[in-house]
């Protein structure tokens, strides 16, 4: 039987996990047929607006086209 282990949440992870939760919630609306199938889906374009700063290895908004 596996041993019980207490998991300590690293600092700042709580907020990040809320963002994880939002991403997973948005996924629910993506698994079926796309909505507004004759419209314009800009999700990829929004995501590509983030780019990596090579000096800090952090993603910054506004770097995409």
């Amino acid at each position: 039987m596996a041993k019980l282990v207490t998991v300590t949440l690293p600092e700042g992870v709580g907020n990040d996990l809320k963002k994880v939760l939002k991403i997973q919630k948005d996924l629910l609306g993506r698994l079926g047929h796309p909505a507004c199938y004759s419209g314009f889906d800009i999700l990829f374009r929004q995501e590509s607006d983030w780019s990596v700063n090579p000096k800090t290895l952090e993603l910054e908004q506004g770097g995409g086209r």
Partner: protein
Amino acid sequence: MSTRRRSSWNKVAAVKPAPGRQALPAALGVGMTYAPRLDAVIEAATGLLDLLEVEPQTLWRRHEGDTERYVVDSVLMGRVAALPCRKVLHGVGFPVGSVRPPSAAQIPPLLATIDALAPTWMSEHLAFNRMAEGGRLIDTGFLLPPRQTDAGVAGAVTAIRSVADCLPIPFAVENGISYLAPRTDEMADGAYVAAVIEGADCGLVLDLHNAWANHRNGRQRIEEFLAEIPLERVWELHFAGGMEYRGYWLDAHSGAISEPVIDVAREIIPRLPQLKALIFEMTPSFLDLVDESTIIRQLEILHELWGLRPPEAPRMSIGSLRRTWPGDAAGAPTPPQWEDTLGALVIDRCTSGVLAQEIAADPGLQIFRHLVAEFRASTMIGTLPFSGRLLLSSLGTERLEQMLADFWRIAPPEAFGSREARAFARYLATMDLGIPLLDELLAYDLAVVAALTENASQQVRFRHDPRLVLGCIADHRMPDNLPDGDFVADITPDGITFRPAGAVATATSIALRV
């Protein structure tokens, strides 16, 4: 490791269809299109929403096997059913403008959806979204304009009746948008719509933004379009906002209703004796760019317009015109040729001939191609959110776009997001990209897709704390310098728990169906 539970997702009982035409109900009022991402907006707008327009196929899941089969996500459906207003259905996956009737596989889940939501009527698009290739039908990734000839009308009438006669509620079609130039061998947009809905004896969802965008893009003038369609068959008006792109006005559903559309509505609403509903449409991915107050304001505008309706007239018994269609001129492109050629050009498949040359010379084709590409790329990043973001940040936009374009050349679009995600994941598995963390993030994304579409429970191993890895990606930060370890994400249809390998307890879990 994967385990499967007995599916409970399709428990909603099918209702027995009542053939024939059904009477229209009393007026419903003002509403908007439903999407899970719009839950908060819908809650904030409760006092302004008389009804919701539900796109049924967005609540379905496509079975992963080769057999075409759809199941209703009954949890999601139950949530929609509980929303306290009337519903109408607006199909997005099985358009009725093709000479190839839409798949009968949609009928059982459609009846289940009708049973669950008790919608007042259903509508579908007067468009096509499949093409024949190598003896099979493949998806075109977008709703495309049908062939507007006598043969095209006859085919659409048959397609409409093939669906409408199976349903226990009234059926209507929506006028579409085309970015192509009008053709001299086709009837005008208004005459085509009129011939189809009179031939099929159905209602019309008049999308004013589509009609106005067609006008703006050089097709029929909207005044002429409105003069040609039978206004007494208009049950519902659609409103949306758009945007300019390469000289074309896109039916983008991007937010505030375009002003000229409101002006047209003021003119036409007093002439619509059977108008029952006004619907505001918005693509969910624009939600981050449009604030809630803007959406509320659009609904207020629709309530002002609602007051312009004429006194409700008794429904005229119109009946089918029972026309016969003589068919197209000899040598002219037939509707199947049109659908296969336009579809092939839009999704970059092999095609040739005079018609292909004519369509390829139309700059509007590039608009369709651009919109399909954006849809497919957005589906990838939306269904594989963590691995997709990692790819984007590791490869950059241009290189990822090139990879996607290479993939699309060998893989036609999959209409359902879960299948598109899996197809791209299979493609990725053939490549050696050398991107750290990609394998475990892709496994994680696919496991969540499987949990939500197939009721499958899975474990995914991580070499670093998955809360840190996923949290960094969610926060648009690159995971870096993470301590090594051995971790597990337990993914079930209900939620995800994160724990060190070997532990049974966890301090961290997230619900999947919130």
